[in-house]
């Protein structure tokens, strides 16, 4: 993440909290207010409210069929909300047709015009605006230069590779300098290697042009790499809107914790609920979980404690304090991933816990191996209590 994006994140965070210095307040560019979209009885988008700020790269993340595309199509004007309002740059756009909105969309299938050359594709939107042809030419050359496709301007879409088509679709949508660019799974059709390279390219283009991007994706890593902020959707609802960092460290629901990165989820009973700490009794662990922050739960009720695999310590020795936040088990499997290894530890209760360790040294033999009896433990501050 660049310094630019980091600053923007801070500003947005302040604006969302409501208190900020007026000079560096980011301007909200899209306001989605209580938008619902029904198809017959089926609710595809359910009472969504969102604010997206100028210059952000905002991701809508969620599994297939959760309503991401429908929400994006409502921003573009291809679907009308059943209820609610959409404001773009302060103006109510709920019932404005797509050809009059100051946003452009990059389609999942790219939707290039097959009977036009690359140049004609990029020029299409400019011509609709009645831009003089000399200027159109200049802008098209400029746009193709950005994605290094200047040499292929005379080709037809079917004469391009998948990666090249993707870039043509991108600059065609950017050519009109829209206030917001909507991207529906922009990297979905590319292979893994190309996708990783293109992620960074996309962020660079976004920052250098200063256009707000709203990206729909189902890929958690992609959202984490590219976005200023992420909204996680499930079954038409938005569960959480946050920076990737906050989303990972402080998920607010079980779904978010499990969807955004891998996690060890423990279900237990809230036995002690104080302002500065809580204790959860989990039958799968031999000791209770002690969490060093308060939660708004009901004593005696069910609680979920989420612990990320890299925040679990693994050792053959007994930890200093064995009264809480630890358990014993046997190493069942080790998954070597290059930079790190994931240990699958089978606890005495039968529950398998994932533990990630950095492979910082090139030791011939790992210290802990299969079938070793080990202790797992974690810090009270590294546990997040989430609601179901």
């Amino acid at each position, binding site marked *: 993440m660049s310094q630019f994006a980091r600053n923007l994140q801070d500003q947005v965070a302040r604006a969302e909290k409501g208190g900020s210095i007026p000079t560096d307040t980011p301007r909200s560019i899209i306001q989605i207010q209580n938008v619902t979209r029904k198809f017959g009885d089926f609710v595809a988008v359910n009472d969504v409210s969102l604010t997206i700020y100028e210059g952000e790269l905002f991701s809508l993340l969620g599994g297939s069929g959760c309503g991401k595309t429908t929400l994006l199509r409502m921003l573009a*004007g291809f679907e009308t909300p059943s209820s609610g309002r959409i404001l773009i740059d302060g103006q109510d756009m709920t019932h404005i047709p797509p*050809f009059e909105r100051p946003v452009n*969309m990059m389609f999942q299938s790219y939707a290039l*015009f*097959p009977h036009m050359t690359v140049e004609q594709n990029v020029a299409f939107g400019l011509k609709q605006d009645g831009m003089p042809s000399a200027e159109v030419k200049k802008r098209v050359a400029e746009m193709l230069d950005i994605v290094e496709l200047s040499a292929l301007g005379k080709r037809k879409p*079917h*004469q391009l590779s998948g990666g090249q088509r993707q870039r043509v679709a991108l600059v065609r949508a950017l050519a009109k300098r829209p206030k917001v660019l909507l991207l529906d799974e922009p990297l979905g059709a590319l292979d893994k290697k190309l996708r990783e390279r293109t992620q960074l390219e996309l962020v660079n283009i976004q920052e250098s042009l200063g256009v707000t991007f709203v990206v729909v994706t189902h890929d958690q890593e992609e959202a984490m790499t590219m976005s200023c902020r992420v909204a996680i959707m499930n079954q038409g609802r938005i569960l959480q809107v946050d920076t990737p960092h906050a989303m990972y460290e402080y998920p607010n629901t079980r779904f978010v914790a499990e969807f955004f990165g891998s996690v060890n989820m423990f279900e237990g009973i809230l036995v002690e609920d104080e302002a500065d700490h809580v204790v959860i009794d989990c039958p799968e662990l031999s000791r209770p979980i002690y969490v060093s922050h308060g939660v708004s739960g009901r004593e005696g009720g069910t609680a979920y404690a989420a612990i990320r695999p890299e925040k679990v310590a693994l050792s053959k020795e007994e930890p200093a304090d064995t009264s809480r936040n630890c358990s014993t088990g046997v190493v069942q499997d080790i998954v070597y991933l290059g930079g790190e290894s994931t240990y699958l530890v089978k606890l005495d209760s039968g529950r398998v816990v994932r533990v990630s360790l950095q492979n910082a040294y090139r030791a011939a033999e790992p210290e802990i191996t299969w079938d070793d009896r080990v202790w797992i433990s974690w810090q009270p501050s590294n546990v997040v209590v989430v609601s179901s």
Partner: protein
Amino acid sequence: MSKRSPFLISCMAFGFAFLYVPLLLLMIYSFNDSKLVTVWGGFSTRWYGELFQDDQILGAARTSLVIAAMSATLSTILGTICGLVLARFGRFRGRTLFSGMITAPLVMPEVITGLSILLLFVALEQLIGWPEGRGMTTITIAHVTFTMAYVTIIIQSRLGQMDESIEEAAMDLGARPLKVFFLITLPIIAPALLSGWLLSFTLSLDDLVIASFTAGPSSTTLPMVVFSSVRLGVTPKINALATLLVSAAAFCIVIAAIIMRRAERERERAIAKAMAEQEQM
């Protein structure tokens, strides 16, 4: 399948013979010098000469071609609109009825189509005085009603294959729906339009029954002339006419096939090239 079954081969040979031997005989006998169709009297092209002297046949040919061209053009326009409605307007009230009614002429007996249209024309003439009598206009209209169904089906299925987001992308870039249709949809489905037009043209040129119902005294089409003259006895002149028609049709098909093959090969080459470049990247 290394060993081809002799049974299948003879079946195929028989089938082809059944299709093409009559045509071949007809072509051969068109060069027959004899006035009797079935007796070979030596090679000559005199019937072709006589054919081009026959004003009735030439006039009928012209009438047929004009009607075919007009009705094909009209039914392509109307059929495209119907296809667009069926493919793009989603589910609307009465859609099933609408699509059923459009395609009904495909299965309706021609005699009934012809008769009902004739009754309509007569009723219309009494009511509003149009169409005045029957002639090329009435035949054209009648042909449009049944060729339109074919065009509708062709266009509908082509639009069904087309990625709808292409049209949405054009709209997203600022084109109004009508402009999207003319700048994007129409060029993409142009080949389907052409094949729809050609099919309508051929159907209209072929039609005897509906034309007989809706024709007036001054508007005899080629099939009508052929049919009535054959009733008086087949003359070698008709053989000559048929030979010309078959040759023209075959010529058109071959040209169309060559054009399509060439376009297809070019496309494949382009795709292969793009793939190779992608691998180098």
